[in-house]
Structure formats: structure tokens, C-alpha cells
């Protein structure tokens, strides 16, 4: 059996098993994520050694059938998912489980893997529906009225987004007569094809929480339980961003209109998210708004990179996605621990005298360094590649915007870090020092991973340089 | 012969349609729930049955006739039952309230 089929089917099988045998759900989840990681490692080695792999499902070649495409970009995304999923599983095993978490998490993993590998637009739509529903379930896991309301708004927004994607696919079918990914380049050639692409992109913008269609996101990401927030913020929105990047690649030079739109919306998101993060009163909300800003940054990176078939600037966007996934997952896990220790998550009450900052605060600080993009993090490398390329093109205004975004992210993240280091009286009487748990290891591991990824950036870059299938 | 059979089938279907139209007018014009139900269930069942007979005469096929008969049966049974349920709900609202209220 090939890695590709197992990558998608194992999580779904694990999901059904965790429902059938709820008592062993956690260990089943661990086995599945470990197996998933091993499969990804083996796939990456194969891709580096032999180039992109393709698998024709059922023996029916595209366009009639559906093809799995495992190229460098897909492999990097799969690796990102595998790393974060190990940490999420480790954290989830140490917290008391809620019914429904494991099947939903396994289904999310399967849907993400399916999404990254699929070479067919309609198939991508179905994968998005699994992802969206599972993400809503993870949001509602907390069970509080706020979380339920956020879950409802998330699902209506998500469904509207996927229906826009479906509308775009219907129009693509009517224009080109087919729906596999190779149709994208044909679509860019005619104005009615571009309408179809624009609809797909609009749906993706809703799903990726791209400004100004991010309205549902801060509530959903901040009211979920920590593990779920980490998952939603680090991985789920990446599905839509990945597809936006994929459309930009498949569309080639003709997708320039798409990239311009992404650049403009990305800039808006970067500034708006940063502004809200600067004003947020709750820690979780700050982190959620920072996700809006970071998504804006990634969209901006995709947007200004130019034709991916001509230059390698787009690899910056992939690196930024990778580093954001690790850092943001670490950050949400850490925030969960901080809130648990203090009994609240108000930023004004973060300073403390008697409890010195612990592993969680440390993890938060390292993740913040990675998000801001200081050397040697992968975020730094990503921004460096981008700025270097933009300097060559003489696009100074984009560079200025990038630097402004970086400065803003440093500003809002330092609100938290400086508070943690500052002394002062406690706000909550129930605050306590928590014992070490595997969750701390997960947050710290992810944060240091994001930090060190910069040193090992050669690995993802090698993968990304594998030519497209 | 065939022309006569054709005409018979058409007449049946026309009659059925007329029943349905009358039922629709009844639902629209009649004043209260019960009289509306009255016209709806009876005329509806009769109309569908007539159309089914007309169609069966037209196709002259055993399998098709069988499924048409099944359809008619289902409409008759479910029409009567839903009519009953709606009327019961009207007269005995406590049942519905108990369901919703709790």
C-alpha cells in the first residue's frame, strides 16, 4: 500500500475506532498520529529522492477520476500537520478527555491530509466540508453558551464559504467542462473563467479568515478549549491558505489578479488584526487576533510573490505557514496552561510576584520570537527570502508594509511577555503553580521547534524545490 | 380501440387533475382548519387515484401499474394519517404542548 492512501485512510479508520472503543480513544489517537508521522517521513524521503509522486485513484486517470498529487509543497504541509498533530495528541492525552474530541480530531487529520494531496476541485470541496464540520465540533467541545454560539456562527460562515467554493466549481465546470486542478490554468485565460476563480477565492477567504471575512474567527478560536484552539488556528485555516497558494501555482502567470487581491486583503488583515490584538483585554483573544494578522501576512506573501513558475518567492509563504503553525499551536497550548494556572486570562492580571514564570510562559515567549520573525526562526528565513526577492524587484512599498507588520506583531506580543516578567500583586486568589505535564512538553517542544526550524530551513526548502508534478 | 383507450386514460387524468384543482381552491377559500382538511384529504386521495388509473391505462405495463398502485396506496394511507394528526393536534393541543414544553 502506498503512503498516500494510508495517510488519508488511517485517520478515518482511527476515527471510527475511537467511537467504537471510547475507552481506548487516547491510545488509538496516539498510535494513529505516530503512524501518520512515520508515513510522512517516509513520503518526504521518497519525494526528495525521486521527485513528486502521483497516485491515480481506482485506476481512473484525471479528469474522469481523482489523482493524489504528492509534490514538495504537499509534503511540507503534511509534515507541518504531522509535527503539530504529535504535540496536540500529547497535550490532549494529559488533559481529561471530552467525549467527541478524538473522533473529531482524527477526522480533522484525515481531512487535512486528503486536502493537501487532492488534485481535484470537487474533491477539495468535500474535504473542506469534513474539515469545516470537524472544526465546528471542536469549537463546540467546550460546551459553554459562548462556544456554542461561536460554533454556530463558524458553521454558517464556513458553509457559506464552501458553498461559494462549490459555486465557483460549478461555474468552472460550465466554462471548461472539467473540475480537476489542471483546469485552473484554462480558467485564467477567459474572463468568465476568472469569475469562477474569484468565487472560489472568495470562499477560501471566508474559510481562511482573511480580512474582511474573518468576522467569525476570533470568537471561535478564543472560546474553544486550548487543544482545539491550537488545532483550529495552527492547522485548519492553513487548509484554505494552502489551496490559495495552490491556485496561484496552478494558475501561473494568469492568476496575477488573484494574487493582487490576496496582497490587498492580506495587508488589510495584517493591520486590522494587529490593531485588535493591541487592544485585546483577554490573552486568548489577543492570540486569536494575532492569527488574523498572521494570516494576512501569509496572504500578502502569496500575493506579492509573483508567478510561482517563474521565481521561488512563493516558498516564503510556505515557510511562513510552517512557522506560524508551530508557533501558534505552541502559543495556544501555553495560553491554556497560563489560564489554568492563574484562573483567568486577562492580560492586565498576568503580572505576579510569588509565582515565577514557568514552562508555559517560556513557551509563549519563544513562540512570540518565532511569530515576530527574529533570527534564527523559520519566520525570519521566510521574511528574508521575501524581502530579498522584493528588493530585486524594487517593490519598496511592500517591504515597508512587511516591516510595519513585523513591528506591530512585536508590539502586541511584547504586551504579554513584558507583563509575565514584571512583578506585581496577584489578581486571582486561586492561582497556583501547576505540576509538569506532557502538555508543557508539547508547548515547549513546538516553540523550540519553531525556533530551530530556521537553522534546519534547508530541509523544507529542499522539499519545496522539488518541481511540481 | 386504442384511440378509445387513450381517450379513457386522458379523461381519467383530467378528472383527477380537476379533483386536485378543486382541493387547492378549497384549501385556499374555506374558512377553518377542519373544512380545509376535509376537502384536502378526500379530494387529494381521489385525484391521485384517478391520475394513477389514467396513467396505468396509458402505459399498459404490469410493473408500472404495480408501482402506481403502491403510490396510490401510500398517498391514501399517509393522507388519512396526516389529516388525523393535524385534526388531533387542533383539538387536543395539550399533547403537542407537552411535547414541546418540557
Amino acid at each position, binding site marked *: *500500500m*502506498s503512503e498516500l*492512501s*494510508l495517510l488519508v*485512510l488511517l485517520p*478515518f*479508520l482511527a*476515527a*471510527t475506532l475511537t*467511537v*467504537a472503543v471510547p475507552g481506548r480513544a487516547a491510545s488509538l489517537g496516539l498510535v494513529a498520529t505516530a503512524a501518520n508521522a512515520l508515513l510522512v517521513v517516509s513520503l518526504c524521503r521518497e519525494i526528495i529522492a525521486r521527485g513528486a509522486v502521483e497516485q*491515480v*485513484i*481506482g*485506476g*481512473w486517470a484525471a*479528469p*474522469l477520476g*481523482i489523482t493524489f498529487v504528492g509534490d514538495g509543497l504537499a509534503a511540507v504541509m503534511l509534515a507541518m500537520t504531522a509535527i503539530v498533530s504529535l504535540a496536540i495528541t500529547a497535550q490532549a492525552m494529559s488533559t481529561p478527555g471530552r*467525549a*467527541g474530541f478524538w*473522533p473529531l480530531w482524527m*477526522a480533522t487529520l*484525515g481531512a487535512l491530509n*486528503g486536502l493537501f494531496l487532492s488534485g481535484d476541485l470537487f*474533491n477539495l470541496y*468535500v474535504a473542506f*466540508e*469534513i474539515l469545516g*464540520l470537524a472544526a*465546528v*465540533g471542536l469549537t*463546540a*467541545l467546550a*460546551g459553554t453558551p459562548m462556544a*456554542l454560539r461561536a*460554533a454556530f456562527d463558524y458553521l454558517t460562515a464556513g458553509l457559506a464559504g464552501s458553498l461559494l467554493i462549490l*459555486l465557483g466549481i460549478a*461555474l468552472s465546470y*460550465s*466554462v*471548461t*467542462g*472539467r473540475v480537476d486542478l489542471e483546469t485552473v490554468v484554462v480558467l485564467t485565460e477567459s474572463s*468568465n473563467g476568472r*469569475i469562477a476563480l474569484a468565487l472560489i477565492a472568495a470562499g477560501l477567504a471566508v474559510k481562511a479568515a482573511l480580512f474582511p471575512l474573518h468576522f467569525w474567527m476570533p470568537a471561535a478560536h478564543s472560546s474553544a478549549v486550548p487543544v482545539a484552539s491550537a488545532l483550529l488556528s495552527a492547522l485548519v485555516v492553513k487548509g484554505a491558505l494552502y489551496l490559495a497558494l495552490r491556485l496561484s501555482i496552478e494558475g501561473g502567470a494568469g492568476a496575477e489578479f488573484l494574487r493582487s487581491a490576496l496582497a490587498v486583503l492580506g495587508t488589510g488583515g495584517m493591520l486590522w488584526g494587529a490593531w485588535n490584538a493591541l487592544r485585546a483585554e483577554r490573552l486568548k483573544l489577543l492570540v486569536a487576533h494575532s492569527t488574523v494578522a498572521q494570516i494576512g501576512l501569509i496572504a500578502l506573501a502569496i500575493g506579492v510573490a509573483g508567478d510561482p513558475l517563474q521565481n521561488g518567492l512563493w516558498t516564503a509563504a510556505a515557510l511562513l505557514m510552517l512557522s506560524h503553525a508551530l508557533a501558534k499551536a505552541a502559543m495556544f497550548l501555553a495560553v491554556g496552561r497560563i489560564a489554568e494556572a492563574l484562573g483567568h486570562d486577562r492580560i492586565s492580571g498576568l503580572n505576579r510576584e510569588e509565582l515565577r514564570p514557568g514552562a508555559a510562559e517560556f513557551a509563549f515567549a519563544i513562540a512570540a520570537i518565532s511569530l515576530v520573525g527574529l533570527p534564527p526562526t523559520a519566520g525570519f528565513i521566510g521574511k528574508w527570502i521575501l524581502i530579498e526577492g522584493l528588493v530585486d524587484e524594487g517593490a519598496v512599498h511592500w517591504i515597508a508594509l512587511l516591516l510595519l507588520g513585523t513591528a506591530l506583531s512585536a508590539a502586541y506580543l511584547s504586551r504579554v511577555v513584558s507583563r509575565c516578567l514584571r512583578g506585581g500583586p496577584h489578581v486571582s486568589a486561586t492561582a497556583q503553580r501547576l505540576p509538569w505535564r506532557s502538555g508543557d512538553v508539547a508547548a515547549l517542544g513546538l516553540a523550540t521547534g519553531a525556533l530551530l526550524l530556521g537553522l534546519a530551513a534547508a530541509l523544507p526548502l529542499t522539499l519545496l524545490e522539488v518541481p511540481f508534478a | 380501440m386504442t384511440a378509445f383507450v387513450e381517450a379513457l386514460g386522458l379523461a381519467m387524468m383530467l378528472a383527477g387533475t380537476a379533483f386536485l384543482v378543486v382541493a387547492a381552491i378549497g384549501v385556499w377559500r374555506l374558512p377553518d382548519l377542519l373544512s380545509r382538511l376535509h376537502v384536502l384529504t378526500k379530494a387529494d386521495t381521489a385525484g391521485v387515484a384517478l391520475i394513477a388509473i389514467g396513467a396505468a391505462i396509458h402505459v399498459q405495463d404490469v410493473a408500472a401499474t404495480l408501482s402506481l398502485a*403502491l403510490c396510490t396506496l*401510500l398517498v391514501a*394511507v*399517509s393522507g*388519512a*394519517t396526516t389529516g*388525523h*394528526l393535524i385534526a*388531533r393536534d387542533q383539538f387536543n393541543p395539550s*399533547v403537542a404542548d*407537552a*411535547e*414541546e414544553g*418540557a
Partner: protein
Amino acid sequence: MLPVFDVVLAAAILVSAALALWVRDRIAAVSGFLVTGLLVSLSWLRLGAPDVALAEAAIGAGLTGALLLRSAHRIPCAPSKALPPSLWCAAGALAIAISGAIVWTVTSFGAAPVYPSLVADNLPESGAQNPVTAVLLNFRAWDTLLEIAVLFVALTVVIMVAPARPRTAPLGPLVQPFARVLLPLTVLIGGHLLWQGGHAPGGAFQAGAVLAGGAIALGLSGVIGSKLTRQNGLALLAIAGLAIFALAALAAEVLTGALLGYPAGEAKTWIIAIESALTLSIAATLFLLFFGPAERH
């Protein structure tokens, strides 16, 4: 004659949809939606898609309608705030623009679909004579597998969040005999649709929906107690569909080297086996989606 019918039908769909979306009364809105669904399934027939018409009538209008009716009274009306007319006009203009763009995109010159000839050429090997079944269970079975996964996730979420419902009172003396007629009939129709799916309109989804509809009627009439929904067996049956489909996909890969690639000449057997499992699992899933958990933990 038929174009006139189509135009009337199209207009009726638009009017009933508008009614469903703008009428104030909850039940009237849901009824409007049901009528729209039935008219739409009629229009699918006119568009040459009887499989879809069956599915729309059974699932899109039938089951969705039942779900909406169940919930209509339990969801309170939001206080209706009058939107400023300027916003209304802007939204209206945008909607008209999008509709216009769609019409223009579809009518202006496009390439002919590439699929019909491909489907026709490969139909003999697919194991099904009905092209729609061939696409769903063979050419693009991967879509269908993910679709079953969607149902699985939906069921998981519903069981997790659905409110604990009070037991519904049995519906009175006339309903039980009705249910006794209905039960054999739904089994008969479901089986017929499943078997027919190989060569004529029908298939696992339509059959599963009919079975689920019958079971829901039985559940509402009190013939099936809430005991059944509480038992794990039904939930296991519901999730078995995804597990069996996924295992079959992998088993096919072991045998032929291609994921979901059925062994040559045996495609029909594989499709019927998978479809039978799916029918039961879909029926159980839809039934549980309607009733939810009897108790929440």
C-alpha cells in the same frame, strides 16, 4: 408544450423559495421550503437527472424538511431589526450582480464537458450500467468515501451537542396501523432502490434515505421507543459505513495496486457489497441525526 411547463415550473420554484425565505411564520417558512424542494426535484427530472431527483425528494426535501419541522418551534425568532434601506439596496444590488454574473458566465461560450464520452467509454468496465452509480461508486468513489466521512463527522457533532429531548408522546391510535403498513413498504422500496441503482435511477443514498424516513415515522409514532436510539448498536451501524468503505478501499489496493481499484471483472460484486453496507449505515446515520442522543452526558 413542455417549454411552457418548464417556464411555469421555474417561476414556481423562485416564488416558493422567496416565500420560504421571507414569510414570518416558522411553519409556513418550512412548508415553503418543502414545496420548493418538491418542485426542484420535479425540475431535476426535466433536466434529465432522475437519480438526483430521487435524492432531492428523499433527502433534500424529505429529511431536511423533517429536521426543519422538528426544530422550527424550538428555535426562537430573532428580534427583527429593520435594516437601513441603504444597506438593503446595497445587498440587493450585490445579489443581482452575482446572479447576473452567473447567468453571463454560464451562457457565454464554454468548452463542452469532457466527461460524457469518458463515462460512456469506461461504463462497461465499471460494474454498473447506471452512469451515475458508476461515477459515484467507481470512477469517483473517493468523493463518495469522503462524503460518508462528512456524515460520520456530522453524526459525531450532533451526538455531542444536541439537546436532550423529552420523549415524544406517542401519536395516537391511527398512527400505529399506519406504521405497520409503512414498515414493510419502506423495506421493500429501499431494497428496490438499492438493487435498481445498478442499472436505473436509484442507489445507496436514496435507499438509505427511504429506510431512514420509514424508521423516523416509526420512531415518531412510538413503535420504536427511545430505547433504541440510546443503544450503541445503532451508532455502531452508523459508523460502520465509513470503516467498511475505507477498509474496502485499502483491500482493493492490496489486490490491484490502485486505491479503490476493484479487481477486473468483479467490480459489480464490490459495488453491490459496498452499497449494501452503505445503505444500512446511511439509514442509521440519518435516523440518529434526526433523533440525536436520548440522553446527554
